[in-house]
Structure formats: C-alpha cells, structure tokens
C-alpha cells in the first residue's frame, strides 16, 4: 500500500518519473530544476531506473534529443526552467506537430532581464501557444500525481501530445512536503510501457517532419488544435481513473469554498494554498461570500469547466504571475475575460499581477485583492491590470 514520506518536491517528481519507468531523459542543468535531474541521474547510476540519461550541452539540444528518443519509441522526460525553456522555444513548437508525447517538468522561474532565479510564470506564459498540454500543480502531492498521469495522458493514442507539468520554482521545487507514494506494481497496472503509433524503425520506414506545403499547412494546424482540444476529455478520463485506483481525485478546474460565493479569487500554481487561508479568514472571520477557483489545466483551456463555476459570481479576481507587456490584461486574466465574454451574466473580471520574480504574495495581499476587486466591480472600472505590492 501507499507509503507516506516527507521528501523534497523535486525528489518526489524524480521518484514519479522512476515509477513511470521512463526510457530516456535528456536534460541540461538550470536553477531551480536541478534537483529533479540530479536525482534522476543518481537513480540511473544506481540501477534503480533503467533509462538512458543524456546530459546534453544546452536546453535546445535537450528538447532535440527528446524528439529523437521519443520518435524512436522511448518514453521520454525532461525538465527545465526559465531561460532554458526559452532556449527550447523553437523545438517546443515542433514536438506536438510531430505528435511526440514528451513529458516535461517546468520549475517555473522568471525570465531575464533583469536576471532572476526566483519564481513567477513568465517562462510558461512565453510558450503558451506552442501546442503543449500544460498542467499546474499546487503542492508536492499534486506534482507527484500529475507527473505520473502526464505520461498516461500524453501517450494515449487519442492524444500523442507533449505535456508540461508546471511547479513553482523554489516555493514548490525546493520545499519538503509529505507525499503519498505509490507502489511499483500499482503504477505498472496504471501505466504500461509506451506503445508508439509510429516509430523510427527500418522494418516500417516513415518520414517524420516533412515539408508542409501551403496546400496542407492549414489542415495540419487545424488537426493539431483539434487534437489538443480533444485531449481535455482524455485528461478527465485519466484523472477519474487515477482517483478510482488511488483515491486522490483531480479536476481540470478546482474550487474551494465557492458555494454561494459572489467574489472568487482565481489562481494557478502554489499560491492557491495561501489564497485558501485568505478565503478561510474572510469566510470565517468576516462572513463574506468569497471563494477560490484554481486552474489546474491551462492548455487546452477548460472553457466549459470554468463557465460552469460562474453561476452567481459577480466578481472574479484573477491573479497573474507574469506580465503581458503592452497587452490588455495579465495573460491568464485576458484568457478568462475572453472565455466568459459571451456568457450570460459574466462576472466582472479584475486582473491582478503579483508575485513577480520571487516576490511573496501574502494572505493579507489576497484579502486586499478581494476588497479592491469588489470596489473595482462596483465602479465597473475599466483597467488593464493592477500590480500588487509594487513600489511606484
């Protein structure tokens, strides 16, 4: 049966990758992703994991090697952060177009400049439209569970797309949390070895990555988007299967004390835990109708699941951890406004940017956000975004 142990989240992710019996890992070191790949290389060196560990000379090559191993038919994993993700950018577009189910942990970190090793979401927002499935974990257990489920989702023949599992750098990657691990035989039943739909094999030659002439390019892109959108059903299926087997239940959109709420906070990633504390205080001490909504699935964007949580909600305060320079809102808030625009009685969507480059977002910050959002809603204030805690 499952063991409950205290372990650093990075190591727990490595253990999930070991349990997934991954075949190939290609990685390049970057803070704060390093503990994940260090531990994986130890597991390979000790013989606990039978996999190829390919220590490449850059993230661009890391993702390129992943293309090669995955096309050969190997279950493939990598991890990166920030500049590393930015350097991979070119290849990130090509992996889903080749329908290669690579799984990647992104230990989210601010993108330079100024250079910062600390946490925000500017790295993942910069690669939003590369065609990857993107999941966000709130705590270590989620990171462990999502890492295992990621392989099952990605390798499903109805999907065959790459997945990023996003964990906040340092605030998740470097903290020790209690995790319930799974036994190898349970995981093996849940996640059998990868069976590729096509692979590079001289017995059945294929050409992968051919030239897309104008006559077929639009069709190729449309197919890709349909498959990505269609993956949401498979994601829900895998979440349900996981919940049934292991008793931990996941949804693409999670809510916390949202019953009867008129104001909702919306977060992605680890700050959801702090936001819960703020909601508890506002509910229990001030008796205010507030709640929290957490996006676990960022791509494909869960439009229907989000809309379903909006009944009776008057104000939605979206917390972004990145800036869309010169844009209309924070990157998440912009999506939310777009997703709710055509619905009846759409709530007022207030866009807040907080926690850039490792700046803490405190419980009182969240409480203040609720107050401010409600005031803005009452005045129907037209705004792009409000930045929390910035010294102007």
């Amino acid at each position, binding site marked *: 049966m499952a063991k409950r142990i205290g372990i650093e989240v990075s190591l727990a992710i490595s253990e999930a990758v070991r349990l997934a019996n991954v075949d190939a890992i290609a990685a390049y070191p970057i803070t704060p992703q390093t503990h994940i790949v260090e531990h994986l290389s130890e597991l390979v060196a000790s013989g606990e994991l039978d996999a190829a560990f390919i220590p490449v000379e850059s993230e661009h090559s890391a993702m*390129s090697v992943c293309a090669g191993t995955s096309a*050969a038919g190997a279950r493939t994993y990598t991890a990166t952060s920030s500049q590393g993700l930015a350097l991979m950018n070119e290849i990130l577009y090509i992996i889903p177009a080749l329908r290669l189910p690579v799984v990647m942990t992104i230990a989210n970190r601010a993108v330079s400049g100024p250079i910062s090793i600390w946490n925000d979401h500017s790295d993942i927002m910069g690669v939003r439209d590369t065609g990857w499935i993107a999941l966000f974990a709130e705590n270590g257990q989620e990171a462990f569970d999502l890492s295992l489920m990621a392989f099952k989702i990605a390798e499903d023949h109805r999907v065959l797309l790459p997945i990023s599992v996003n964990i906040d750098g340092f605030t998740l990657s470097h903290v020790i949390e209690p995790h319930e691990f799974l036994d190898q035989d349970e995981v093996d039943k849940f996640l059998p070895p990868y069976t590729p739909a096509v692979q590079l094999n001289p017995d059945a030659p294929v050409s992968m990555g051919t030239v897309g002439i104008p006559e077929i390019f639009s069709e190729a892109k449309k197919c890709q988007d349909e498959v990505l959108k269609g993956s949401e059903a498979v994601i829900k299926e895998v979440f349900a299967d996981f919940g049934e087997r292991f008793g931990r239940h996941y949804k693409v959109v999670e809510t916390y004390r949202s019953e009867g709420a008129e104001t909702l906070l919306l977060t992605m990633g680890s700050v959801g835990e702090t936001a819960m504390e703020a909601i508890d205080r506002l509910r229990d001490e001030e008796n205010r109708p507030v709640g929290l909504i957490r996006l676990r699935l960022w791509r494909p964007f869960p439009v229907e699941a989000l809309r379903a949580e909006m009944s009776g909600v008057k104000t939605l305060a979206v917390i972004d951890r990145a800036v869309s320079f010169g844009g209309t809102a924070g990157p998440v808030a912009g999506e939310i406004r777009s997703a709710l625009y055509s619905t009846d009685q759409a709530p007022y969507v207030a866009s807040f940017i907080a926690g850039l480059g490792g700046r803490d977002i405190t419980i009182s910050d969240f409480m203040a956000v609720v107050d401010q959002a409600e005031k803005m809603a009452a005045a129907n204030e037209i705004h792009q975004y409000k930045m929390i805690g910035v010294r102007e």
Partner: protein
Amino acid sequence: MENLNVYAAKLAPQQESLAPGHRACQGCAELLAVRLVAKTLGRDYIIANATGCLEIVTSSFPHSAWQVPWIHVAFENAAAVASGVEAGIKVLQRKGRYPVDRKITIIAQAGDGGTVDIGLQALSGALERGHDMVYICYDNEAYMNTGVQRSSSTPYGATTTTSPAGKADPLGQHTMKKNIVEIAAAHNIPYVATASPSYPFDLMQKVRKAADTPGPAYIHCFVPCPTGWRMAPNLAVSIGRIAVESKVFPLYEIENGEYKMTVTHKNHRPVIDYLKPQGRFRHLSEANIAEIQQQVDKSYDRLLKKVKMSQIELD
C-alpha cells in the same frame, strides 16, 4: 565491401534507399553523394536530417524520397536528434522493445550551414557524448537553400549574396574556410574523413568504415553546387575531381588520431584550374589567385606533415 576502389563500378550495390523523383537542381552533387551513401548502407539505417536543401528537395509532403526511417526536426539540431534516436533505440533494445537482430546505423546529415555555423554546438555535444552515429556534412560552401548566402565554410574570395564582390570591396568572402574536419577530430572521436562524390568508391568505403566504427564518426563531404557556384550543371563531378587534384579539397581520413591520405596525385593542378570554371570566383584578380594558391599550398603542406607524423608514430 572492403577495398571497393579495386572493383569495377558494376560491382557497386544495386540497392537504393533514396528514390528518384526528388526536386534537387540539375547537376546537384549533394544528392549524388547522398545516393552513394544510401547505396552503401542498404536499408538498415535511420536518418536525422537538418533543415536545408536536402530536406526540402526530398520531403515535400505528401511525397518522400526516403525508403528508410527519416526525421527532420530543425536546422541546427540534426546531431542532437540523431543522438536521441541512437540513445532511444539502445535503451529500447536493452529493455526488449526494439529489434536486436541487426545493427542499425544512425546517420545525422546537414549542410555546411547546419554543421559549421548554427549546428556546431549540437554537433560538438553529440561527438563529445560519444553516441554511436555517423554525422555527414554535405558541404556546398554556402547557404544554398536560402539563396547562396555566405557561411563560415565559404572559401576565401568567393562571391555570395551576402559576401558580394563590389567596387569598394572587390574580394567577396574575406575569411578562410573554417576547418571543421580538424574541429571534429579535436573531439578525439575514432573516425573522421573527407569525401567527394567525384571519388565514389573512396566515399563509399569511408561511409562503410564510419558505420562499422563503434562511437561517433564524422564525414565531411564536398558537394559542388552548380546553382550557387554559378557554373554549368554538367561540371559538378569534374569540378569535384579538380578540387582534389588541385589540393583545394584533399581526401584523407583520421582514424583514431592517425592521418592518412586516401587519394593522392603525383602532379597537382594549379588552383586556377579549379577557380576558373566557377562564376563565384570570376571577379578575382591575378594577385588574388596567387594568394589563394599560397593558402592552398600551405594548408596542404600542413596536412602532409600530420600524415607524416602519423606514419612515424605507426612505424
């Protein structure tokens, strides 16, 4: 296929894995070389192809000229993709999920731009990590696919669309061709060679040797490009021969660090014989040509010294 050079052409393998009907220009020596490589390797090989002429002329969807598994990802990463294919197959074979009944050769192939410029880092990484693969650079001495722009493999004095000879600057390319063969050899890999489709049996023998060598091998293949070099398509093979006869592109191999000439000539032709048929050198003055002759002599002498040193070491 030992000592192919003593056999007649009709004894070369009949097998083809590069289908006809691809879209290369008339007289393209690159596709000629690729066909010879394909003949040598049969069907049990996998290609990781960089973006470039070779990729676009052989893979315009829904057509593909490749009868072997082939993957193209991007411009600068053929070496990295090939190393992934190699590592992936090795681990799957160990785990019993990939055929083990025969050796499958992993080929990375790219042009000079994809090798000596944008792909240099990925190439160095792959060679350093020691993957069992053969990297073949098809060097036509400029970015031909995008319209003949200079690369660091473009020779001194050549005019290209980004190193044009003009009134204020009549030379064309100012820099010497990057010596990528030495760079590859500096990784201490077991096999490095230069090759030319104008010497088909020499090329095929080197490909065989590279494929049979465990660990990384690098072959630098000189492929005249009539379109980019501004010459008649029917000159592609003969200009390749003249390049060797004039010492411009010597054919040699470096096996475990030992240099050996594989094609030698008693009387070398002057470089003017090589330069003259090509429009890209037409603007050069007599002084320029004399300078190039000196450069060629010097680098050839330097190569011969290395060959001699290797012979002394072997003795």
